[in-house]
């Protein structure tokens, strides 16, 4: 990254009072945040965009149907014994903390394990959490397209020595889209409930 770019990136980060923003900017490397025309504090980030998958009721689901809401997107799989329940329980806390504002926030849990995650499996899994999330699955090729769009990644790792048979390594970033469907924030796995709530409120306030 050139010195000029570094300074601009630094200024962009400094403009955000949230601790995770520094990481988000850092992760983006040389990609510069685009100046937001609406005057909001948060820049529009690259990546994301519309897609269509299958929801946990087996119905086609289009991201565009959620315009007007802040949308949280993350990738995972139901067999995931640790990271995914942790994220889901954290997002349950986020929803509780948002109170009435939670009605303007939708959560999308996109499976990267379509082999195990049928709509019914995802539905049963989500039913365990106090969170109104939409579970999404689909053909591997369709999921792969969304993964690439969002700059996420995953890998199926065979584990013949384990009863799991295979595990799925996957990125744990939580993406926050504004009501126009534009990517505004990326939260690291370690982001706290407070940080996520603050970020969502910033997006809601600007829209």
């Amino acid at each position, binding site marked *: 990254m050139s010195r000029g770019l570094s300074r601009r990136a630094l200024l962009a980060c400094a403009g955000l009072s949230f601790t995770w923003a520094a990481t988000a900017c850092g992760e983006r490397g040389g990609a510069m945040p685009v100046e937001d025309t609406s005057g909001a504090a948060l820049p529009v980030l690259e990546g994301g965009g519309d897609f269509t998958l299958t929801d946990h009721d087996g119905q086609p689901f289009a991201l565009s149907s959620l315009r007007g809401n802040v949308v949280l997107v993350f990738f995972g799989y139901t067999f995931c*014994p*640790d990271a995914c*329940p942790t994220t889901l*329980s954290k997002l349950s806390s986020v929803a509780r903390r948002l109170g009435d504002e939670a009605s303007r926030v939708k959560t999308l849990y996109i499976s990267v394990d379509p082999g195990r995650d049928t709509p019914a499996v995802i539905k049963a899994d989500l039913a365990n959490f106090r969170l109104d999330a939409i579970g999404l699955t689909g053909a591997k090729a369709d999921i792969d397209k969304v993964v690439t769009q969002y700059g996420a990644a995953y890998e199926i790792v065979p584990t013949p020595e*384990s009863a799991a048979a295979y595990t799925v390594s996957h990125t744990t970033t939580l993406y926050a889209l504004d009501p126009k469907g534009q990517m505004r924030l990326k939260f690291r*796995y370690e982001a706290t409930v407070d940080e996520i709530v603050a970020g969502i409120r910033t997006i809601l306030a600007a829209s």
Partner: protein
Amino acid sequence: MTFAIRSTRAFIAVVTLVGLFTLCPHAAVAQTTAVVAHDAWMREPMPNRGETAIFVVLENTSAEARSVVGVSTTVAEKSELHNMVMDGSMMKMTPVKAIELKAGSKTELRPGSYHIMLFGLKERPAAGASVPVTLTLDNGQSIALTAVVRKVEGMRR
């Protein structure tokens, strides 16, 4: 008479001592075992899931490195040692053959790190229940511990 009373008292004392040694083998083992386990807990299994995880703090109080090489419990068909590693933002879940317990140090099996994975749950213990777990060390020693079942935060039930 006095003699009889004295011998009865002595008899009771001996019986009590023998009884204590017989009843407290675990207390005796705990004092001589170099690896001490505490704060063991199990994530309450979700109704639709056949797997869950157990976490525990292990303290190796000896001057020698040890490792956990095996685990078993009566509530699951298979118990395995696993590790979760964050590689950048990538979460990787891997079965491991052993968990090293460095000499004189504390190793925490916790969410997001080393943990015990249970597959094929035969029982569904609810929050508050106790689950017996046995760890096997590389020196052949076994450590018996009890994991208390805890609910995952944000669960509906």
